[in-house]
């Protein structure tokens, strides 16, 4: 594998040519915000929070999918990127019903943390206050689409890791929503194994355990690295789990 050299935020780095900008940035502790990305799942580049600037290109690139080439000049934290990232979180906040104060993941929510990170002190666009469906028919879990940001982590983990493929996206445009078993109530799903992986990878309070009260839902995601390492490398290493 060829090794290339390039710069990120003025510093020179080298990496294997098959590595993404995000992987390299994480290796070198360069902060780039993400939402749809989760190590162990396939990459979709959907949320656009990890966009970076590449010199000589007018187009911004998602760090999770873009790979550097020799001599590339990458910037991860310009004023333009900060503005865009804040706007993305603002739009996410306005198009759902994110009431942190009474949410089951209050205090341990990736969207909430992102809002702090990008300095979201208010939302400049009107809130849409959509009326979205909450499905509590499953005996252990609940999906509240009001809190869903359509990151599709649940879709991917169920298909790629559990192999059950319960979840999909239904609808179009702003009416897109997560559906199970071709839009059946979760409790009636024949494909769901009730493993709870979707609940754990969900970055917000959209998927949670039934009976959880305000701020009570903690999402432990170490299992994912453990399973993926075992599957890809045939290494059944419990430490991979513990490191998380």
């Amino acid at each position, binding site marked *: 594998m060829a090794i290339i050299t390039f710069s990120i935020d003025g510093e020179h780095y080298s990496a294997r040519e098959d590595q993404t900008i995000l992987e390299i940035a994480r290796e070198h502790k360069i902060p780039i915000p993400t939402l749809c990305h989760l190590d162990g799942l396939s990459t979709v580049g959907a949320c656009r929070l990890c966009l970076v600037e590449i010199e000589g290109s007018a187009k911004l690139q998602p760090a999770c999918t873009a790979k550097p080439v020799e001599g590339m000049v990458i910037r991860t934290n310009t004023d333009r990127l900060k503005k865009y990232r804040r706007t993305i979180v603002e739009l996410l906040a306005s198009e759902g019903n994110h009431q942190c*104060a*009474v949410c*089951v993941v209050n205090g341990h929510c990736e969207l909430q943390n992102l809002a702090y990170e990008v300095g979201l002190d208010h939302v400049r666009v009107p809130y849409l206050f959509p009326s979205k469906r*909450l499905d*509590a*028919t499953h*005996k252990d879990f*609940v999906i509240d689409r009001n809190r869903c940001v359509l990151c599709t982590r649940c879709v991917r983990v169920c298909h790629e890791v559990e192999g059950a493929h319960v979840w999909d996206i239904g609808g179009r445009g702003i009416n897109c929503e997560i559906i199970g078993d071709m839009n059946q109530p979760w*409790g009636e799903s024949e494909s769901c194994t009730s493993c709870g992986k979707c609940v754990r990878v969900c970055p917000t309070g959209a998927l949670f355990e*039934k*009976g*959880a*009260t*305000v*701020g*009570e839902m903690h999402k432990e995601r170490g299992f994912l690295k453990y399973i993926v390492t075992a599957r890809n490398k045939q290494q059944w290493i419990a430490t991979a789990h513990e490191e998380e």
Partner: protein
Amino acid sequence: MTMSTTITIAPVTRIEGHAKITIQLDEHGDVADARFHVNEFRGFEKFTEGRLLWEMPGITSRICGICPASHLVTSAKAGDDILAVEIPETAEKLRRLLTLAQWLQSHALSFFHLSSPDLLLGFDADPAQRNVFGLIAHDKEFARRGIRLRKFGQEIIEMLGGRRIHTPWTVPGGVREPLDPARRDAMLAWIPEARETVGIALATLQKMHGKYAKDIPEYGNFRSLLVGLVSKDGGLEYYDGFLRIMDGNGNTIADKLDPKKYFEYFGEAAESWSYLKFPYYKPFGYPDGMYRVGPLARVNICDFIETPLAEAERKVFKALSGKAGVVNNSFYYHYARLIEMLFAVEKIEQLLKDPAILGSTIRSDASINRAEGIGCSEAPRGVLFHHYHVNKDGVIQKANLVIATAQNNIAMNRTVRQLASHFLDGRNGKITEGMLNRVEAGIRCYDPCLSCSTHALGQMPLHVRVLDADNHVVDEMMR
């Protein structure tokens, strides 16, 4: 002035929320009617439809920043009912502790921060001074003690639930965290000071009873039904027990009523001029079924108080009633509130010294076992009901919240009318400060929480209007 006149006081100050008062005069300048308007609207009952039962304590506690713990406990009790569980002994004791801490901090706020400026500085003192800052200037130590007493209540809530306001610690089935001995000891350390402060407040109030002897008979002095919880053996109750209804002559007209059947006993009327509903006792109809709840009702209807100092004080309180057997004067809400603070301090000490308070079994687990549940407890301002209907998955289909302040609504209107009739000089159509101050103070006796009762949010400036029969403004005042 030839026509009849309406005087409006809006908004009313130093209450929890936003309201105005209008006083309608007849053509002779006498008070024809008085209305206490509450012009806030929040809609909790509507927007909680579709949410989960387990979220309800967290959501409904957001109704109010003063007594979130009361909503939290009552909502969790409605949840217990739907799960059809009996909660562990420790959980019940911890919830009782939380409820009393809530009483203490809210009553301290009402007495020291909101009402003491009237009582100590005088109803006619300069409004710029007649507030908690004026109180600090007047008697620093008294104010400091009041603020610290409230802090005691708040600290118990914080030590139990992790935060002073809007802790989500009480849940359907019990509570979330046990109490550790270190925090128990920290709470106990407060008791001597708290007891002393309530004693000072009681002595101060007794002096005020002498000072305002002439005014007091006009402060909402009328017979009404009194409603509240009593314990199984008839004692003062705050968390559980039965409903008792007493009339203005001291006759118990209904006893041992199951709080879960409140809707069989009480109806809610609505008036076009207020967002605050008008609950009434069904057998007597509206508005004759007027009733009062809260400290005045609770201390009146109970047969005894289980703690010694509060019981001794209750007997002094009851002696005020003379032949009637019931203290009907709303001014004595203040006195009843202080007696309850004394009880709260004594009872908190008892609970903390009970080894069961440190137990680790605190949460009963169950799924949805009933389609309907009702929670009831005594909030600082009176008996509070949360009534939920859920589907088989625990999703709220319908919620009804019956709030203490709403239950005092008819009585508050009656109090305003009485005060206005007595203190208003209607002949020249002019609003006098003295009348305004007393009408406001009359409302303040009830310590109304309009944020709770309309489930609404508000502010507190003061605006007064006088209108004639054709609703033309004759006089207007703002501060």
